């Protein structure tokens, strides 16, 4: 459905049984966001959100692994903020200070981005809310970049589902 220049995207549409304003808060109020964002046994010990265009976000996901608790940090920036309607933010693997991990730190050659973008669109349908979420990889500059960047994204996704199995 989406034409975003990247074949690798997830688009999910859901009808949420809640009013627009509350669904908006699910994404923009850390208290609410922490309650649902971590799937399965993953918890969100930290969620900092400066919800305005250019504002930053920092989310920590903690999962239990056979090797003990594992923390992953994700930093990003809000690109579009239209209250109760449209939210766009980026997401990159980072450290606890929100510094995006240099590709070399992640074992990748230099110059390879690891950023993805999350778009949320909300629409009122008679008191309930239609929510369309699109998560896409930002087009990469070089062909070889995709492999590594996406491998790490897959890994992050895997971590999130790990304790679910």
């Amino acid at each position: 459905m989406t034409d975003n220049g990247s074949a690798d995207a997830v688009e999910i549409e859901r009808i949420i049984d809640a009013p627009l304003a509350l669904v908006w808060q699910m994404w923009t109020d850390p208290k609410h966001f922490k309650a649902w964002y971590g799937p399965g046994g993953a918890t969100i010990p930290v969620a900092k959100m400066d919800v305005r265009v250019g504002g930053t976000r920092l989310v920590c996901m903690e999962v239990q692994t056979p090797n003990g608790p594992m923390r992953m940090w994700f930093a990003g920036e809000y690109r579009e903020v239209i209250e109760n309607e449209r939210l766009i933010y980026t997401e990159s693997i980072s450290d606890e200070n929100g510094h995006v991990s240099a590709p070399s730190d992640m074992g990748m050659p230099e110059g390879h981005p690891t950023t993805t973008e999350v778009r949320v669109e909300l629409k009122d349908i008679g008191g309930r809310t239609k929510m369309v979420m699109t998560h896409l990889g930002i087009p990469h500059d070089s062909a070889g970049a995709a492999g590594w960047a996406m491998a790490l994204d897959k890994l992050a996704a895997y971590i999130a589902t790990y304790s679910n199995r």
Partner: protein
Amino acid sequence: MAATIDEDRLSETFAALANSTRRAILARLAEGGATVNELAQPFEMKLPAISKHIKVLERAGLVVRGQRAQYRPCALDPAPLEEVSTWAERYRPVWEARFDRMDDYLRQLQPRRKAGKDDD
């Protein structure tokens, strides 16, 4: 179902990546193969400590050792990171699970809506 994915292997892969020294070793190997001695050079670490890190990376399948006696140069093998299906396919169930939780959470927040709205 992604039952073919070797979950233990993947957790080992992530555990291997969750260490800055090992990531630095991988970064070095991304530029080309190297011996343990060469890998140890940038670090203030004794060889056995570096060897230990390399063993972890080997177990995770991220590093393969050559057969040349003594030197046994190390090389990067990104295959463990690539054996998962596409990025989007991996992420979809993560988001679906999240939104299920959002539904549950919203039901707790709005108890009055609880009954009779199962359809879609």
